[in-house]
């Protein structure tokens, strides 16, 4: 990979391609090569990609069976009814 090649892509463009890249959605081999050439060359962009990866991993560590802070909940009376239904089914 040549340095010249990596410079054909601007950093401001690369940061908008990160998700497509991580998703494996860049299907044009030439485009993919351009991105990888840029990352070989550019530390800040490599850090940016790494931080997106870290962000995904950290979001993935949020507990799946606990509500997010401030999430909009079903109204209390509906949740009460559901709990009643759960109890009733258990009692059968």
């Amino acid at each position: 990979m040549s340095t010249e090649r990596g410079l054909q892509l601007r950093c401001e463009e690369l940061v908008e391609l990160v998700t497509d890249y991580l998703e494996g959605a860049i299907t044009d081999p030439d485009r993919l090569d351009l991105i990888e050439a840029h990352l070989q060359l550019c530390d800040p962009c490599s850090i940016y990609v790494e931080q997106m990866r870290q962000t995904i991993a950290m979001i993935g560590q949020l507990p799946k069976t606990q509500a997010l802070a401030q999430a909009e909940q079903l109204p209390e009376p509906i949740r009460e009814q559901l709990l009643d239904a759960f109890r009733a089914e258990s009692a059968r």
Partner: protein
Amino acid sequence: MTAALVVALAKGPSDHLVAAGRRYDLIVTDRARKPYSCAVQGITDPPGLSAQAEADDAAEQAMLARLKARDEGAFNELVRAWSPIMMRVARGFVSTDASAQEVVQEAWLGVIRGLGTFEGRSSLRTWVFRILMNIAKTRGVKEHRITPLSSLAGDDDVGRTVDPSRFRPDDDPRYPGNWTPAGCPQRWGDDPESGVLRGEIRTLLSVTVEALPDRQREVVVLRDVHGFDSDEVCSLLGVTPENQRVLLHRGRAKVRAALEQYYVKEPV
């Protein structure tokens, strides 16, 4: 570009363009490991992610066991955890918020009735959301809302995800559109994602995700919190794969920016 210029580029004291000489392992966020994701050379499943997926599976198994044992606390916990995103998914198919609440309520009633016979061949999450989708679609047909909202209409869904002032202007004589020295992302210190999330960061993440614009939050929560793959998310939300990626990108970029503010303000 000449070789001399290339050398000058690498030498410039304030320049960030250095030959890093290392490869970046990509991650496959689809835990289902779709064939297309693996088609791109260099993509590997990092150990951290599959460990996380395994931990998630174990947690889900534990939750299912508690539900089957008719543990009320477990049911209540799950209703609180999943109803917000279920309402958002349902809302895509029906006309009103009230109607979406009824769909979610009906879905939970279906879960209660089905628990005894649910054998766990699919994941709990897939099963619950399948029940939800069936009810939401039926209700949507009745309300003549057959196609879910799928347009990328919001102001939040267009434009750049990184502050443009962090890049050199178009008329920069050397590197237009590349990071300015002050704009370069700084490392966050040692492997912030490893281990258990600190309470403070967990709260920051949780609040930031919840504050995302609706469509972005829906995609980020389904993909990155609950681990649905992109095909599943497209069908749950009625979006195209392209739109799904745009929403995911914008949502994740905002969360990254919040983490950046946290880590850069408070040295680790």
